[in-house]
């Protein structure tokens, strides 16, 4: 299979670094794994979808083009919109020729590891005249268990529950949260995979694993803080509460996590308490699994002279740098050689591979350990630990490709998430108004002069006073901001304002975005879309 060239990759990297603010270490990590030819099978299941997410993905040019992604980076085994073959039966028997279903069945039954992509909501209701839940959307027998009338509900549940399923990517607001098919008035009980609107609990699983707070992003710094305010991170239902401290120079400039906590099943609320003029707001970022490494495997070279009596050969696994503990293994001795070591406890907290020593009598046996982060989803069981939401109606192709690239490039680990399990580094790190330059927001310029040069409208003395385009102390919007016309940008986490859409192959940024064409943001990446974000053209 043709691989992406190093030169191509560096081109992507340089563009990505500038536009996304990726750190050098992140890029280095991506580069390393690209060199290692990461590859993974992908099954793309479309549920109650308009295929808009597919169409959006086909516009990908930023990290990589879609043909490169599909041909070089992943093995897209099944995707009924894009694949060349259709599913066919003759007299109820699967046709042995070119058959789309066979590709999916092969992945389900034989793949060593695959990523499941779900597009579209999952109807869970039972229609009149049917006895099958979710029968509002049938997609055929993707698993090869003989059920020709399989529903998307059944198929997604079966694929996601498979041990070889490494991750479940919910592409689009429908698969993430229910979206348009789950809007008020729907009769099919459409749900997302692990969310229904803002509520955890979807068609397949109830949440998306547990994790720790790894960093906190300041959404709005507030003003007038005379002392360092108290930062409180809401406690998890069961687990350790995370703590953090703020840095302030009148406004809150940064919040540092002191204790990451553990056991969070959803990204917790962050409250900032202190005497001030306007209150600062912040959002926690969560790693779905705390990244402490453990021993994943041990390979052994036999040596000689070891006792075959059970329990007489002792094995000690020691950390080489004081970090990590608890790993244990049991040896099996065959013919006076140590034939194998069975890992009985993987331990935790290792930062480098621990050393293995063997007790006497006997000599020459040596062993090599390999550690693997708990962040690696292969160390996790259960569907909930695998799900990442990539909402948007449709999501920007870069958000999808960026997340897939992260999973490939980090040896199949899920990216850090902001609230509702959205990847923070691939599109969902900030509200639209803050993520980039909104042309209608008065105070987005670095200086008043800068602003006047770019947007020469309004009274220059008044510019810069406005926040979210709202005149201080009033609910009156300044001319320009579309909030009064129903723009949901200030409540919507997405970086359209910076990234923009429809980039050509050479451009780091896209041509335009909804708000850029004076349309107002509809809040399509939020779990409350389309109902609870409010009417699209009404101020909320």
């Amino acid at each position: 299979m043709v691989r992406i060239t190093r030169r191509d990759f560096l081109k992507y990297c340089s563009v990505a670094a500038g536009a996304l603010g990726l750190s050098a270490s992140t890029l280095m990590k991506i580069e390393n794994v690209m060199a290692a030819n990461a590859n993974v099978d992908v099954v793309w299941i479309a549920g109650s979808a308009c295929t808009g997410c597919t169409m959006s993905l086909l516009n990908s040019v930023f990290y990589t083009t879609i043909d490169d992604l599909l041909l070089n980076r992943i093995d897209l085994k099944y995707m009924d919109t894009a694949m060349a073959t259709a599913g066919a039966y003759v007299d109820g028997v699967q046709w042995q020729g070119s058959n789309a279903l066979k590709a999916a069945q092969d992945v389900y039954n034989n793949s060593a590891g695959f990523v499941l992509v779900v597009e579209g909501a999952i109807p869970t209701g039972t229609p009149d005249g049917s006895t099958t839940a979710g029968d509002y959307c049938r997609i055929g027998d993707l698993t090869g268990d003989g059920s020709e009338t399989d529903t998307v509900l059944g198929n997604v549940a079966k694929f996601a529950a498979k041990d070889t399923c490494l991750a479940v990517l919910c592409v689009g607001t429908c698969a993430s949260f229910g979206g348009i098919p789950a809007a008020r008035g729907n009769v099919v009980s459409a749900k997302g995979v692990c969310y229904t609107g803002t509520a955890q609990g979807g068609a397949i699983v109830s949440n998306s694993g547990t994790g720790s707070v790894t960093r906190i992003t300041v959404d709005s710094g507030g003003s007038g803080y005379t002392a360092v305010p108290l930062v409180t991170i809401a406690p998890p239902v069961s687990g350790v509460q995370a703590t953090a401290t703020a840095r302030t120079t009148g406004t809150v400039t940064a919040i540092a996590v002191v204790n990451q906590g553990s056991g969070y099943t959803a990204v917790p609320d962050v409250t900032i308490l202190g005497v001030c003029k306007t209150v600062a707001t912040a959002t926690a970022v969560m790693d779905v699994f705390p990244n402490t490494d453990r021993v994943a495997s041990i390979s052994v070279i036999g040596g000689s002279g070891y006792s075959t009596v059970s329990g007489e050969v002792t094995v000690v696994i020691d950390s080489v740098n004081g970090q990590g503990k608890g790993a244990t293994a049991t040896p099996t001795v065959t013919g006076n050689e140590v034939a194998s070591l069975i890992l009985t406890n993987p331990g935790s907290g290792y930062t480098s591979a621990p050393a293995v020593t063997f007790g006497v009598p006997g000599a020459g046996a040596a062993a090599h350990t390999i550690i693997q982060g708990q962040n690696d989803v292969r160390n996790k069981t259960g569907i909930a630990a695998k799900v990442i939401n990539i909402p948007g109606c449709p999501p920007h192709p870069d958000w999808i490709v960026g997340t897939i690239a992260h999973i490939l490039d980090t040896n199949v680990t899920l990216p850090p998430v902001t609230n509702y399990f959205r990847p923070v580094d691939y599109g969902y790190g900030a509200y639209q108004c803050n993520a980039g330059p909104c042309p209608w927001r008065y105070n987005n310029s670095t200086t008043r002069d800068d602003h006047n040069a770019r947007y020469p409208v309004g009274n220059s003395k008044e510019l810069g006073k406005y926040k979210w385009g709202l005149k201080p102390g009033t609910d009156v919007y300044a001319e320009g901001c579309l909030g009064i016309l129903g723009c949901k940008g200030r409540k919507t986490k997405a970086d359209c304002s910076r990234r923009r859409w429809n980039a050509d192959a050479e451009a780091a940024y896209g041509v335009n975005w909804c708000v850029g064409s004076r349309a107002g943001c509809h809040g399509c990446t939020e779990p409350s879309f389309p109902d609870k974000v409010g009417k699209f053209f009404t101020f909320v």
Partner: protein
Amino acid sequence: MATTITIDPVNRIEGHLKVTVVVDSGTGIVSDAKCTGNLFRGFELIMNRRDPRDAPVIVQRI
């Protein structure tokens, strides 16, 4: 004697479709053909009692 050929899913389309054709084995003539849309979301019901200005935003996602 007739042969039933079912194509499900039909690929390269937006949505879900199943086509069933019955072919008479002796003559090769298609004696029956059915086309099934396998997806129902109820957009018409979702549109009930909404702000009419929201209609184009929602139904464009069909």
